C-alpha cells in the first residue's frame, strides 16, 4: 500500500459509483417507495442535493489538508488519541456495514440462485474474492472497477429497456406520493444512502490534489444521485404502488419480467452474473479501505497480514444476525438512517477542529517570529 500508487479521476469516480449505487441491486428502490410512495424517486435526488451541500463544506475545510486522508487530519486535530478515536469510529462503521452487506449478498444469491447451498458455502466465495483482491491491492481493484462498471451498466440498461413494455406513466401519480412532509422532512436522515461516499476521505493520498478531490466528490455524488433516482423511477413505472413495497430485490423482479418473444427471456441469469460482479467489487473496495484504516490508525507497517484476520472476522460477524428479515431491518433502519453521522458529521467535526488547531499553531508561529 505504497503512497506511490496513483489512480485517475475517472477510476476514482467509477469506484465511488459502484460503492454507492450497488444499493440499486439490493433493496433501495423498494425502500424509497416505502418511504415516499410513488414519489420515492425524489428521495435520492433530494438527499443527493443535501450530500452535495455537505460535501461543499467538507471540500472547503479540506483545502488546507491536500493529500491527507481523514485519519491524518484527525492526527493534526487532536494528536494520536484523536487519530485512534476517529480511526476506530470508521473501523467499527465499516465492519458493521460490510458484515451486513456480505450477509445480504450471500442471502440474495441463496434466494435467487443457489437455494440448496448452505449460506456459509455461498458467502465463502465472496470472502475468497475479497481476500484475493485485497492481496492484489487497490490499484487492481480500481482498474477492475473500470472494466466491470461498463458491463454492469449494459446489463442494467438491458433490464431497463426490457421493461419498457411494462412502464405506465400514470404510476408516478399522485405526484407527491406519501406527502411532502414524509419525503422532505422525515427522509432527511436518508442522506445515509450515500454512506459509501466516505471512501473518498481515504482515497485522498491516491488521487491528485484538492482539485481532483473536489471534482471526484461532486461528480460521483451527482451521477449516483441520478442513477439511484432513475433506478427507483424505473421500478415505480414498472410495478404499481403499493405492490412495489412487497418485492425484496426489486431489480431481480424487473429482470424476471423481461420477455421479448420466445427467445429473449430469463435474462435474470445475466443479472445474477453482473450483480455478483458488482457485489464483489463493492466488498473488495470496502474491505481494502477497512484494512487501510486499521493500518493507518494503528500505524502499522504492512497491511497484508491483516487481510486474513479481517476476512475471518467479517465472515464470523455476518452470521450473528439470526435471519434475513433482521438483516434487512439493520440495513434499512440503521445503516441507511444513521450512517450519515460517520460519513458526513464526523469528518466535518474533525476537519473543523483540525482547521482551528492548524490556524492556532500558525498564529503561534507568527507570534514567535514577531
Amino acid at each position, binding site marked *: 500500500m505504497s503512497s506511490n500508487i496513483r489512480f485517475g479521476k475517472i477510476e476514482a469516480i467509477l469506484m465511488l459509483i459502484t460503492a454507492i449505487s450497488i444499493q440499486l441491486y439490493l433493496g433501495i428502490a423498494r425502500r424509497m417507495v416505502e418511504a415516499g*410512495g*410513488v414519489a420515492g424517486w425524489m428521495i435520492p435526488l433530494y438527499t443527493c442535493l443535501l450530500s452535495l451541500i455537505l460535501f461543499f463544506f467538507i471540500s472547503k475545510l479540506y483545502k488546507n489538508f491536500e493529500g491527507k486522508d481523514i485519519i491524518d487530519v484527525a492526527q493534526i486535530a487532536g494528536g494520536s488519541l484523536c487519530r485512534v478515536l476517529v480511526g476506530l469510529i470508521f473501523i467499527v462503521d465499516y465492519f458493521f456495514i460490510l458484515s451486513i452487506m456480505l450477509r445480504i449478498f450471500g442471502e440474495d444469491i441463496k*434466494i*435467487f*440462485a*443457489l*437455494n*440448496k*447451498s*448452505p449460506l456459509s*458455502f455461498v458467502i465463502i*466465495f465472496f470472502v475468497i474474492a475479497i481476500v484475493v483482491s485485497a492481496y492484489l491491492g487497490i490499484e487492481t481493484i480500481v482498474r477492475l472497477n473500470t472494466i466491470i462498471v461498463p458491463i454492469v451498466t449494459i446489463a442494467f440498461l438491458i433490464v431497463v429497456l426490457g421493461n419498457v413494455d411494462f412502464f*405506465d406513466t*400514470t*404510476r408516478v*401519480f*399522485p*405526484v*407527491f*406520493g*406519501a*406527502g411532502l412532509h414524509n419525503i422532505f422532512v422525515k427522509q432527511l436522515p436518508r442522506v445515509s444512502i450515500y454512506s459509501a461516499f466516505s471512501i473518498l476521505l481515504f482515497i485522498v493520498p491516491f488521487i491528485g490534489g484538492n482539485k481532483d478531490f473536489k471534482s471526484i466528490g461532486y461528480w460521483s455524488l451527482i451521477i449516483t444521485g441520478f442513477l439511484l433516482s432513475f433506478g427507483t423511477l424505473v421500478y415505480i413505472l414498472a*410495478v*404499481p*404502488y*403499493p*405492490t412495489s413495497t*412487497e418485492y425484496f430485490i426489486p431489480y431481480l*423482479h424487473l429482470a*424476471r*419480467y423481461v*420477455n421479448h418473444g*420466445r427467445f429473449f*427471456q430469463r435474462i435474470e441469469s445475466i443479472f445474477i452474473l453482473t450483480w455478483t460482479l458488482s457485489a464483489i467489487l463493492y466488498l473488495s473496495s470496502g474491505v481494502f479501505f477497512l484494512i487501510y484504516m486499521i493500518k493507518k490508525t494503528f500505524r502499522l507497517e504492512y497491511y497484508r497480514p491483516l487481510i486474513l484476520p479481517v476476512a475471518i472476522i467479517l465472515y464470523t460477524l455476518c452470521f450473528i444476525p439470526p435471519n434475513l428479515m433482521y438483516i434487512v431491518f439493520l440495513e434499512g433502519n440503521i445503516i441507511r438512517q444513521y450512517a450519515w453521522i460517520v460519513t458526513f458529521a464526523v469528518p466535518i467535526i474533525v476537519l473543523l477542529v483540525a482547521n482551528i488547531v492548524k490556524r492556532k499553531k500558525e498564529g503561534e508561529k507568527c507570534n514567535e517570529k514577531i
Partner: protein
Amino acid sequence: MKKYKFISFIIAIVLQGTMLTGCYDAREIDDMAYPIALGFDKGESNELRMTLQIAVPVNIAGGEGGGGGDGEKGVTVVTVDTPSIYSGLSMLNTFLSKQINLSHLKAIVFSKEIAMEGVSKYLHAMIRNREFRPNARVIVSRCPAEEFISAVKPKLETNPAKYYELLLSAYKYTGFSTDTQLIGFYHKTESDSIQAVAVLADVSEYESSDEFSIDSSTYKQKGRSYPLEGDFKAGDLPKTGELNIEVMGLAVFNGGKMVGELDGEETTYHLMLEGKFKSMLFTMPDPMDSENFIVLNIMKSRKTKKKVEMHGDKPKLYAKVFLEGDILSIQKGTNYENEKNTPMLEEATEIFIKEGVIKYLDKSINVFGTDTNGFGKQYKSKFLTWNDWEQFDWLTKYKQSNYEIDIDVNIRRPGLITKTVPEVIGN
C-alpha cells in the same frame, strides 16, 4: 516466485472446477419434471385439488427413433387433493420419478368455483416462489380445471409449452381474450385504480355437429336475431373436432375474487378501452341490408384516449377509440369502396362499435362495478398525495359513473379489389 504464482493459479482453477460446478445446487435438467399447466379446483378430500400437466420431453422430441413428436403424448396429467400448493408438490414428488420444477410453467388454471372464492392466497404463494415465471398466463376455467387441463391435447403443435404460448397470444388477432400474465394479473388484484381480468376457458360442449345449439349464446341479451362470432363465451361455441378446448371471453375480478364473465364481443370492447386491442376480423350487419354481413379487418390506429371528470360526486368517463379497417367481405355486393359509400360504412361501423362499447361499459359499471379498463389510473394525476387518492375511494365512485364514448374508424384499404361488380344471373 514464478513457481509460487503458477501453483496458486493451478489451485484456483482446480478449486473453481470442483466448487463452482454445482455441489449442493447441482440438478440435471434430465432429473426434473416440468409442469406446463397447473390447475386448481376445490378438493373433495382436502382443501385444494391440484392438477399438473407435465411435459414428457422424450415424446416432444420424437423419441429414440427420431422424427416428429406428438403433442398429445407430449404431456401427462396428474391430480392430487392437497391442503396447499407446495404440500401438493411434495405429495406428487413422492411418486413421480423426477423432481417437479415449475420454471417452465405456462398456464395457471383456476376453476370458476375457486376464482369466485378468491385467488389471492394462491397468487401470493406463487409470487413468493422464484420458480413461477411472471409471464405464465392466468386462466379461469368454467369447468373444473382438472377437466380443462386433461382436455388440452395439442394437434398442431408438438411442443405443449409452445402450444400454450401461441394459444394465449391469439388475442392479438382474435380480440376475444387478453394478455393475462401472472405478474400483471397479480398487480391488478392489489391495485385501486384498475382491476383484474383473466382469460375464460372451457371444454367444448358438443360431441358432434348435430348437437349444435345457440341457446347459450349471448346474442338475445344484445337484442340480435342471430349470433355474431363474438356472442359466445368459452364452452358455448358451436364447434366440434379433436381440439376439445375453447378460449373466449374474460373472467372479471374485484380484487382477487371473480365477479362475472364477459363474452367474446365484450372482451373486444374491453381491449379497446384498456388500450390492449391490436387487430381482429370484425363482422357486422350491412348498413344497407341487415340480412347480409360486412367483414372488416380492424386494427388499432392510435392509442385510446381516456379522461375522467368529476361532475358533482359522480365521475364522467370519456374515451375515444381510434381504429382503422380493411374491407374483407361485402356479402351484399354494395359498392362501399367508392368515395360516397366509404364514409357511410365508416359511420355505420362507428355506430355499431359504439353501441357495443356502451353496453359493455353499462355492464362494467352497473353489473360488475369493477374498473377493469383503468379509468382510475387517468384520474390519479388530479391528486397530490396517495392519502388523498385513497380517501377519494375511486372504486366506489366508479359504480356511479356516466360516460361519453367516441369511436373513430377509418376504412383504409379495400383488399385486392377496388369495387364490387354485381353478379350476373342468367334467365
